[in-house]
């Protein structure tokens, strides 16, 4: 971990495409992807762009904060990856990219494109679709006589039965799942973060759903305080847990470690009004409105993420697994056509929920996650916490939409 961090840090010091920082290069920013080879790949793409030199900057650490700060100044990137937020759009920081798609727009998955659209205009060209799901170890479940869970109660029961000896039942993050399972908990009872610019979870069912996360936390079956957090599959591949909440990107690493001895599931439903769900998000390529070379930047984005479909396929499938945002590429991807990866694609088709919709701002996310954390970790009353978070979210929505 520390070696990877150090390597990433060193990588951040340099950024190159081999053309050097001669002042005429477009600046393109990425956050640091965990899978080996991605940085070299994106530098290779940039280097092969013929029209203008492109300098790639690889950013480990708190990328969102760094990016948000840079967008306030004239020193920010020309092109960068992110998910659009209504606050950035209202502040005029992003360039609308509707004209970049051309005829290819219909080929981009509609729900993913919607996540990059604010007030009817599209601000990002989706690069890769990421989804989260539950990984389980087939042999351990069979050994314990446990069936793959299809309801939240079955999940809690399974985690409890699977926690034996040195193995814990489930790993859903070092905070006990507070940060990543809040959304799935809402969806499990048919609620959501926001709906039509209104609070989507001001409902007693939300308290019930989050109360189930508390039940899971106090069951003694969760792994807590692992060296790497939920996004990395290490706890699962090292045999520390029988089940782990992580993402499609982890499939190659899990296959390498466990072969076929694993399966995947969406987060299960809790009540009849809810359903199974998988959080889905997509980073998109965006253009900085403060860039002095907006047209060149848009042209580069068009070339890289609309025209070069081979690069989109390579970016999504040659390192960790992600789903290409263009339906035509996703449909012919051999690596997504069988086994757990194919199940994941089916989950996205049937049960996808936006993990980070544009009108779910950081203030709202913090208010909601804090409430979930207090319920899950401290045992705070769920009804009061949900109500208090709903008030904050309502105030923010009122400020944004009137």
């Amino acid at each position, binding site marked *: *971990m*520390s070696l990877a*961090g150090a390597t990433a840090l060193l990588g951040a010091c340099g950024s190159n495409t081999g053309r050097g920082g001669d002042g005429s290069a477009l600046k393109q920013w990425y956050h640091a992807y965990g899978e080996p080879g991605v940085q070299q790949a994106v530098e290779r793409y940039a280097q092969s762009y013929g029209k203008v030199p492109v300098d790639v900057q690889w950013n480990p650490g*708190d990328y*969102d*904060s760094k990016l*948000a*700060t840079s967008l*306030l100044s004239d020193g920010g990137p020309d092109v960068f990856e992110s998910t659009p*937020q209504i*606050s*950035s759009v*209202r*502040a005029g*920081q992003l360039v609308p990219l509707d004209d970049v798609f051309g005829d290819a727009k219909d080929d981009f998955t509609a729900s993913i494109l919607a996540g990059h659209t604010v007030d009817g205009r599209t601000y990002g060209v989706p690069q890769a679709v990421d989804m989260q799901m539950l990984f389980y170890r087939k042999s351990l479940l069979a050994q314990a006589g446990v069936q793959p869970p299809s309801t939240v109660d079955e999940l809690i029961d399974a985690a409890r039965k699977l926690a034996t000896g*040195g193995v814990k039942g489930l790993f859903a*993050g*070092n*905070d*006990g799942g*507070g*940060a*990543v399972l809040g959304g799935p908990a809402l969806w499990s009872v048919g609620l959501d973060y926001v709906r039509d610019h209104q609070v989507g979870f001001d409902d007693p069912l939300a308290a019930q759903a989050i109360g189930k996360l508390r039940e899971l936390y106090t069951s003694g079956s969760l*792994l*807590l*305080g*692992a*060296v790497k*957090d939920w*996004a990395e599959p290490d*706890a699962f591949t090292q045999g*520390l847990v029988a089940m782990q909440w992580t993402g499609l990107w982890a499939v190659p690493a899990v296959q390498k470690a466990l072969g076929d001895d694993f399966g995947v599931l969406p987060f299960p439903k809790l009540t009849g009004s809810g359903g199974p769900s998988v959080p889905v998000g997509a980073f998109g390529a965006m253009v900085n409105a403060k860039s002095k070379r907006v047209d060149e930047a848009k042209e580069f984005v068009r070339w890289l993420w609309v025209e070069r479909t081979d690069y989109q396929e390579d970016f999504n499938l040659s390192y960790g697994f992600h789903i290409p945002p263009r339906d035509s590429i996703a449909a012919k991807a051999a690596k997504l056509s069988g086994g757990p990866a194919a199940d994941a694609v089916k989950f996205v088709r049937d049960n996808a929920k936006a993990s980070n919709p544009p009108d779910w*701002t*950081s*203030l709202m*996310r*913090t208010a909601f*996650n*804090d409430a979930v*954390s*207090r319920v899950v*970790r*401290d*045992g705070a009353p769920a009804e009061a916490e949900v109500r208090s978070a709903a008030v904050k979210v309502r105030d923010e929505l009122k400020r944004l939409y009137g």
Partner: protein
Amino acid sequence: MKHGRAFWLFVGPFAVGLLVFVYVPIGWSLLLSLFEARNTVTPTEFVGLRNYADMLTDEPFLASLGTFSVFAAFIVPLTFVLALALALLVNQISFMKAFFRSVFFLPTACSYVVASLVWKLSIFNGVRFGLANTVLGWFGAEPVAWTVSTSPPWYWLVLVTLRLWLQLGFYMILFIAGLQRIPQHLYEAAWIDGASRGWQSLRYITMPQLRTTSVAVLLLLLVAAYQAFDEFYNVLGTDRGYPPFARPPLIYLYYTALGSGGQDFGHGSAGAVILTLLIAGVTLLQGRVFTR
């Protein structure tokens, strides 16, 4: 003339640096605190003292101030007493004095980030092969989720030991410097008058003579406690943000103004001004009480 040129040659760069990187940002922050400033540092909507009123009624911000007043109440005396004890021990030994001073001072040179990661990932991780859990395992105890558990709040043990390890050496050196300024003849006169070499010498000679050093150490410790950021951010923060507990004021303001796209500079700046005034007020009060 020559002196004037030499003065500006040496002082000029630092004065410019201070102006550009300290006073201009402070002034700008004061300005921002009076404006509605979301996603911009050149705002246009003047709101007067509204941001201050918002922050003074903002529950998480007040909780962060409260939490860290409690933290300061523990970490300041604890560090003070241990640093003084260490200084007395190291100052008294007659062998390998330089070695022990260096050994205890070395952690001061360590990066807060690196130390935080060592504490979080190696010593106090929650799996069974973490160092602390391995030791517990020898006694048959179950692994403890040190940085996760809130009841009991084991994360305080991680944060306090980390800060002690990083800071003790520095304050020990300050105390050693103070101890070396105490004239030896004071002790000798006291011993002739029948004072014991232990407690009575410490109580009636060492401590009064260390008064100015002690006041300086207490002030530095207090300010450092309120400025806590690095170890909290690196031990408790995740890629999904920061938990609602053990949230120091600087962490809260960082997430308000900068973190993960928050970008509310008006409220962030107002909070920073309030925090600055609070630190200044408590420091002045403490200085006045201890220098009476």
